[in-house]
């Protein structure tokens, strides 16, 4: 138990702000995630439940271990997602901004290379994102959206599973020292 704790907790000084990632990937991966959400459900409607932009936001925020970077990444991806939809600009932006900030905060403290931790974080941040989105739409836009906890949990579980595979794939894009 002590070994697991040592592995999950990292040294704040040693690894904070380290992001060995190719620069083009910071643009291409979010763009591909947004394209996936725009394009693929046309042919496979069941895949519309996948929130790849959110998973990419979590991944980059965890990877950067920088709250400001996580905030900006979340805001950019969220606003792009908003601009391609018919909703108000800022709904997904604010949700993903909060997710990016908190994910980066978690990444500072924990070893985000751990699969189980990634699964838990994906599950938790998906639920948090859905809750934020529902609250923003309900409070600021005034639309009455339902919030099904059970359905949200199932979809969060599926997204967490996909997130593990996606994170593993994105790890391959890291620069090698």
């Amino acid at each position: 138990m002590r070994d697991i704790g040592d592995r999950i907790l990292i040294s704040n000084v040693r690894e904070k702000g380290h992001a060995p990632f190719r620069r083009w990937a910071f643009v291409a991966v979010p763009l591909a995630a947004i394209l996936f959400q725009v394009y693929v459900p046309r042919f496979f409607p069941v895949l519309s439940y996948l929130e790849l932009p959110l998973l990419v936001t979590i991944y980059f925020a965890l990877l950067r271990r920088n709250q400001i970077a996580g905030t900006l990444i979340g805001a950019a991806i969220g606003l792009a997602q908003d601009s391609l939809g018919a909703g108000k600009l800022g709904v997904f932006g604010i949700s993903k901004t909060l997710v990016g900030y908190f994910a980066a905060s978690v990444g500072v403290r924990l070893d985000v290379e751990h699969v189980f931790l990634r699964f838990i974080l994906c599950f938790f941040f998906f639920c948090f994102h859905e809750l934020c989105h529902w609250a923003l739409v309900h409070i600021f836009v005034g639309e009455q959206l339902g919030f099904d906890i059970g359905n949200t949990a199932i979809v969060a579980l599926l997204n967490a599973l996909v997130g593990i595979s996606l994170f593993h794939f994105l790890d391959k894009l890291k620069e090698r020292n």
Partner: protein
Amino acid sequence: MDLLSRYRNLTVLLLVIFAQLILLAYQVKSKDKDKDVPLVRVWAVTAVTPLANLIETIRSHTVDLADNYIFLRDVREQNQRIKDEIARLKIDNQYLRSELETADRVKTLSAFQATTPSRTLLARVIGTAPGSNSRVVFVDRGTHGGVMRGMAVITPEGIVGKVVAAYPTASQVLLLTDPTFSAGVISQKHRVHGDVRGLGQSKCQIDYIQNEETVETGEKFYTSGDDGVFPKGLLAGTAIAVQSGPSSKQVFLDPAALHGGLEEVLIIVEGVHQPIPDISTASPEIHLQPPAAAAQETPRPDGQAEVAGTEADRLREKYEQIGAAQNHVFGTGLPGSKPPDFNADPGKAPRKTAPPPPVAGGSPDIPPDKAAARP
């Protein structure tokens, strides 16, 4: 400033969220689509749509390629299926054509069988004897069917050969083209007798025709009936080449019955002689004998009775006619008596049925016109 620097991360977060809240509030407050914030949307759409177009193009081409591949695969299978169907139909067509030709041949044979005076037996060729030079076939009728050795084998087109061996269920037929085959024939136009003989090839040769005899190319030869095998009047073939030889004329014959294979034949069980058909009535396609009641000797074109084939026989008959016309009985005149006038035309002289009563003191060898002139 120290406070902001200390809580820089939180400050940035709050600023970003505050900016987005203002953006959101502006949109909610405007309620007008025209007052939307299009700039961000334009950037996003401009950034995304080219990629979406590219992906859609790749997808559509890939799907088209896959569809075409599947389509072509189906076409290939369909093509193979159609080829197999065509091959099967060709085999069926060939079989039906063969059956139709067999039916036609059997119909022709039956018609010929009904019209020919000879009693015949229908037989089917079931095999050939080995040997490159031999022309022998087996037919499916034997002694159980009444076939005996030496019987003639024919088709409506002409003679085929003769039975050289009869077994219980099959018979061996020596074809007309075999080198050991021989049969007596007579030409249709000039009534020239000869002996047809096989050459081991598709053609035959007619022997024993003197160079003085007249045979024309294209003249038909019929069986003469003097060989004891073939009844008289069956077509043997057509002369295709005639040339004079050192001792006799060389006449090559194209057998009439051996064109286009041999499948069904008729074995003559009881042969009936028939006349040689006239040139005008002979059909080049099929030879059908006249009914038995009409089977009589056909008179010669000059009105004279048919005579033997050799020149000596014809000369003898001519002299007999001259003698009869001049009331001369050969072998009765004394030495020194006047012989009959052999230069006289027997056809112009009135032929008397009975000789006149002998005149007293008259010589029997005196011609009647001179005897009448006596006082």
